[in-house]
């Protein structure tokens, strides 16, 4: 397998602050990679460096085994950036055609309109589209050159349920054709559904890397929640064995733990006043919380 993306000990410093800190990552061709992390974790900076929009302070970045800035590489990648970019006074079809003209082997316009669900909007001005439609136009532009690697920064923000479903289908179709897809997202469900590899970044470092099920299994992603009686204090709960974090909303408390079986006994032995007990096994959401939260408090 060829490496689509290679980051070797990449660091990016902004005014003395490390946005990306000694990060190494190799992505094989044909992977659907989801890059997760809290806001300001360094996801966008990492993607900017992979795309050659920013240069690393130290370390090496290779895209398709070449310099990301080389025109040959650019002909084979596509990207949908976080900010919506449409240009005034051009129609949807014209905007897509303009982008198609940049690439040596573009996809047909009709196909691009189809996968972005913009067939009816072809003759509308791009600036007249809704936010979600503009994101879809951005996707059509990213896919215009039939890229081998496509980057999608928060692709489905502002899309309705139907558009999101269409979008996911398209991503899966691209992946099945051997394309590499890199996406960042806030919707963990999206990462869970689409990705075959998840990399979690926090404070510029990779803190977890694996398939969605590995990520879920490998973290302390189990939760006991209950409505606590008046005498129950946060300090008392945190003292219990295996509690990694607590979260209160009113009298409802969530205990995060790697071993909820032992914790439930501990709760009973300590005669904690509990009602409406629930035990949740970890979804990706919880796994993500568990990964990111302790790092923040440390």
């Amino acid at each position, binding site marked *: 397998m060829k490496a689509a993306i290679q980051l070797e000990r990449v660091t990016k410093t902004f005014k003395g602050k490390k946005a990306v800190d000694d990060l190494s990552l190799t992505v094989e061709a044909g992977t659907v990679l989801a890059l997760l992390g809290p806001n300001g974790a360094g996801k966008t900076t990492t993607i900017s460096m992979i795309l050659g929009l920013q240069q690393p302070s130290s370390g090496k970045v290779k895209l398709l085994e070449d310099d990301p800035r080389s025109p040959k590489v650019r002909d084979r990648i596509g*990207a949908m950036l976080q900010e919506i970019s449409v240009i*005034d*006074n051009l129609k949807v079809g014209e905007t897509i055609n303009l982008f198609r*003209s940049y690439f040596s082997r573009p996809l047909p316009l009709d196909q691009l309109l189809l996968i972005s669900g913009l067939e009816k909007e072809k003759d509308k001005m791009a600036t007249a589209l809704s936010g979600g439609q503009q994101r879809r136009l951005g996707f059509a532009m990213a896919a215009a050159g039939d890229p081998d690697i496509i980057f999608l920064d928060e692709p489905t923000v502002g899309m309705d349920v139907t558009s999101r479903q269409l979008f996911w289908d398209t991503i899966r179709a691209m992946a099945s054709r051997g394309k590499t897809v890199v996406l960042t997202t806030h919707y963990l469900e999206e990462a869970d559904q689409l990705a075959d590899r998840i990399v979690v970044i926090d404070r510029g470092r990779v803190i977890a890397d694996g398939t969605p099920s590995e990520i879920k299994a490998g973290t302390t992603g189990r939760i006991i929640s209950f409505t606590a009686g008046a005498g129950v204090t946060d300090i008392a709960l945190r003292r219990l064995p295996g509690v990694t974090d607590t979260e209160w909303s009113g009298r409802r408390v969530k205990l995060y733990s790697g071993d909820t079986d032992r914790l439930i006994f501990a709760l009973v032995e300590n005669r904690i006043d509990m009602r409406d007990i629930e035990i949740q096994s970890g979804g990706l959401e919880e796994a993500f919380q568990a990964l990111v939260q302790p790092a923040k408090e440390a």
Partner: protein
Amino acid sequence: MNTTFSATWAQCKAELLRTIRNRRFVFFSVIMPVAFFFIFSSTVGSDVKIGSVDFTSYYLMSMTVYGVIGASLTSFAQRVSKERVQGWIRLLRITPLPSWSYVLSKIVAQGVINLAIILVVFVVGGIGKQIDLPVSVWLESGLWIWIGGFAFMALGTLIGSMRNPDAVQVLALIVYMSLSILGGLWFPTSTMSGAMQTIAKITPTYRLGQGAWNLVGGEAIDWAGVGILAAYAVVFMLISAYIMKKQEAV
């Protein structure tokens, strides 16, 4: 290579489409100069002369210059600023489109637009008021305005390098109107006071107009004027390149 050529061509076409669809452009660069020309040439009368040139021919040149400048200052500056703010430039940087192709297509498209304005104003005004000038003078003055017009593209780029497109619109309009009035495009400088005439001589608008007025009057182009206009173009380009570099770094 073939892709780059067709991409540059597509980029030119897109620029032209965006300009023609811009109502501001049509108003300031076509309707307003033509309307001003007919209004003023009718009220002033055909026997009035500015220097050795009759007012009608003189004012046709003024209004052509006014239209060409308007295209660069209002619609071009606005296009530049919108592209920068909306992240369009960032998006283009990750496509295979070389940056020279982007710049070239902007220049070519603006050249076509300016040429079209010159033709429209010349034809409509020339026929409407039966202006009788030798063919060589039509060609020379048209060519002069066309070439000199590129200096204002540099000024348009400078104004467009500001971050806020709304501010760009207002600023562009202020610069456009004040330079046009100060430079004697609306009212000939000979009607101005001595102090105002001195100010007029340092404006790039006056210098672009002066070349055309000279040609219509059977004189040669003033080379000092060419120098001043070129100096403005260089300064505008340097400042806007500096601003854009600085913004890029952030």
